[in-house]
């Protein structure tokens, strides 16, 4: 049953709002596809609980020598208490910059927030002063990074790095902070924590450093945890330990997590909602169940098609080519040069369409018992516009899952750059 016996009562953060509700309406909407216009529609508009953090139309640009690099170009999503949003994409798609923008850590001069809002409990973080941001950062919103060695101070003992957070944000005294730090390290599974807390970061292994990072990030019981590829540098057995730890701490504290990763397997095991980013934009967003079962954007399909799975064998279907240069983006769909379905209307970047499904899965909408995920499944692709509903049920894999909507891949499609030049032609001579 969805009612979770696993979930302990939230410790100290006041009464827990009722988040569970009846299953979302299904059936009669099957196959209906409608446009919702721009990315403006708040993602969690239909949820009961108010989101803690809402990102709307976020644009983070970098001014470079080659022109304006649009690292994030209109990303929108919302986070509710206790949920996990998986932000998936390949390197350079803007997923990390999205996180840095929320933290207010985008290096400016080169970077700037060119538009959008980041609402944290209704207040726009982008309008806050540096001091106000500093009070929120690390206390209510904190972050863990891929490489803990670059974010831990190599000159400070681990104990000091954690007590600093506690003294600064919670005003604890030295002794109290130290006691709490020890408690945190033990919670995060550092063996023999009392003896090891006065070691320096280099004396810890990669997995242990990541545990220290998590202890530090969770020291003030933040409401939002931004995890940027937290397990990418780790071995699978250690990855499993760290993911388990994040899951456990999240359940204890009701923290909302943004999990940035390129690993679709990790996302499938952790996330309630998934947003797929490509070239700075969210191209598909939905509940993990919907998205993995009915991947609709050609890029999402390609991503799923190019991952070898432990439980399946067969030829992979990779996408040709490479992600575009973010300084050279035109007005067309950024995936068009690599898309096997590219057609004429793709010269205009598609609006976001909502895809309605019949009931998905076993009725548990959110597989970690955090209440129904009422997020709609939205796709930025023209093909989602006029799709006939037949064939919807074909499995999650492959172009075969999508019946050719109109003419399959118009011959005019610029499919030429299958071997894109690494630099400008002729730039090779030096």
């Amino acid at each position: 049953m969805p009612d979770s016996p696993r979930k302990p009562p939230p410790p100290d953060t006041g009464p827990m709002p009722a988040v569970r509700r009846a299953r979302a309406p299904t059936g009669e909407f099957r196959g209906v596809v409608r446009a919702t216009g721009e990315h403006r529609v708040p993602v969690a508009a239909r949820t009961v609980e108010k989101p803690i953090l809402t990102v709307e139309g976020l644009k983070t640009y970098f001014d470079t020598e080659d022109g304006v690099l649009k690292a994030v170009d209109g990303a929108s999503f919302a986070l509710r208490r206790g949920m996990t949003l998986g932000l998936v994409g390949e390197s350079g798609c803007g997923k990390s910059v999205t996180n840095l923008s929320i933290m207010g850590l985008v290096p400016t001069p080169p970077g700037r927030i060119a538009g959008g809002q980041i609402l944290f409990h209704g207040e726009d973080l982008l309008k806050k002063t540096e001091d106000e941001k500093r009070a929120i950062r690390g206390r209510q919103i904190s972050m863990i990074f891929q490489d803990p060695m670059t974010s831990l101070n190599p000159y400070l003992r681990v104990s000091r790095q954690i007590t600093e957070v506690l003294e600064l944000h919670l005003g604890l005294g030295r002794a109290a902070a130290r006691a709490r730090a020890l408690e945190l390290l033990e919670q995060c599974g550092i063996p023999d924590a009392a003896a090891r807390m006065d070691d320096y970061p280099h004396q810890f292994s990669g997995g242990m450093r990541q545990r220290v990072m998590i202890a530090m990030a969770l020291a003030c019981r933040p409401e939002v945890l931004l995890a940027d590829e937290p397990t990418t540098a780790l071995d699978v057995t250690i990855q499993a330990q760290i993911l388990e730890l994040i899951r456990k701490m999240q359940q204890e504290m009701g923290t909302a997590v943004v999990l940035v990763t390129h690993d679709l397997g990790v996302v499938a095991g952790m996330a309630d909602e998934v947003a797929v980013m490509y070239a700075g934009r969210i191209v598909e967003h939905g509940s993990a169940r919907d998205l993995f079962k009915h991947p609709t954007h050609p890029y999402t399909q390609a991503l799923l098609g190019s991952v070898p799975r432990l439980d399946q064998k067969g030829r992979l279907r990779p996408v040709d080519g490479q992600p575009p240069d973010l300084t050279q983006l035109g007005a067309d769909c950024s995936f068009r040069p690599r898309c096997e379905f590219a057609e004429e209307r793709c010269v205009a970047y598609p609006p976001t369409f909502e895809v309605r499904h019949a009931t998905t899965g076993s009725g548990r909408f959110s597989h970690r018992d955090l209440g129904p995920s009422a997020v709609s499944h939205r796709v930025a692709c023209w093909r989602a516009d006029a799709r006939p509903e037949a064939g919807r049920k074909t499995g999650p894999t492959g172009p075969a899952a999508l019946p050719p909507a109109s003419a399959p891949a118009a011959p005019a499609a610029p499919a030429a750059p299958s071997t894109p030049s690494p630099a400008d032609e002729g730039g090779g001579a030096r």
Partner: protein
Amino acid sequence: MSAAPPEPVVPPRLPEGEVSATGVNAVAAGERPLVEVRRLKVHFPIYKGTIFQRRVGVVRAVDGVSFSVRRGETLGLVGESGCGKSTVGRALLQLHRPTDGAVKFDGVDMAELRGTALRQVRRRMQIIFQDPYASLNPRMTVGAIVAEPIETHGLEPDKTRRMRRVQELMDRVGLDPRWVRRYPHEFSGGQRQRIGIARALAAEPEFIVADEPLSALDVSIQAQILNLLQEIKKERNLTYLFIAHDLSVVRHVSDRVAVMYLGKIVELASYSDIYRSPLHPYTQALIGAVPIPDPEVEERRERQVLKGEIPSPLNPPSGCYFHTRCPKAIDRCRFEVPKFVHIRRPGALGDHFAACHLVTEHYGVVAAVESGSGSGPVQDADGALRRF
């Protein structure tokens, strides 16, 4: 593959897609494997002091590993970082000289070779490195990089024809031949890995060690390179040792899979046996830890998270190296090193080897292959290994 049904139980030696289409599986009884590794040890001593150096310890990176690679097959070698899998790959090419044990390539003991003789054998075995950024000389053009093995091994003395060959190779791996004069920094990671592949192919090898060729690449690029490696293998009838930490990738390409832990192989079997019926607790945990990109599958899976971390190879635990993390360890595991043996498992699709007391007690043994403690029926072992 269209409309993939739930995967049927396919014996590993039946033709199935790219895996077995190489004609590999027609291994006649008694045919010599291309590569034979016997009790291979690679130890790295650690010294302290500047003038009066004294040895303070030894890292047992590879500590007694035996396996064979059949002509035409792909043997996957998996394990976590620091388990010695890359060292094994390098030791095969004598890039690290083994401390002990033998590496035979096509019947020739590599350890006895020096100079020209070694170079001649090495031409037939090439390596593709993990890091496409560090493994290409930034001061050489792509053309020069790919031409170098052809030149070194004197395969094509004529310069024009050599250049033509380079361009053919570039074309084959998916690089525009017009880019011969470009330098590595002008290419993306995936393209650099293609250069590395072209360089490996230039020497016209029979055997390629692919040392984590995908781990530095993005997902969609990984799939491109993986498919390229498979195509080339089929075309040129190559034999691969495919080293990776990603079990999904290894499963995808391998005919057989060897799992390493702390310098030793703990299990070796056909890919179906390894993934359907893993015997060693470490293999089981490793497979259980690999996330599967499907929320419904993930939800149903039982998760057994291993405690602790890999011990240091400087100071490995007593008995079975895995006993400190093993959920099933018994007393015996703490004291006695398990032997790497041929397991008598009914229903196994191929020969199944493992080093675990519990497994041998449960199933029984066909023949001891590698003695863990130094005393074992070695004669039998080599015979058994040669058979599979």
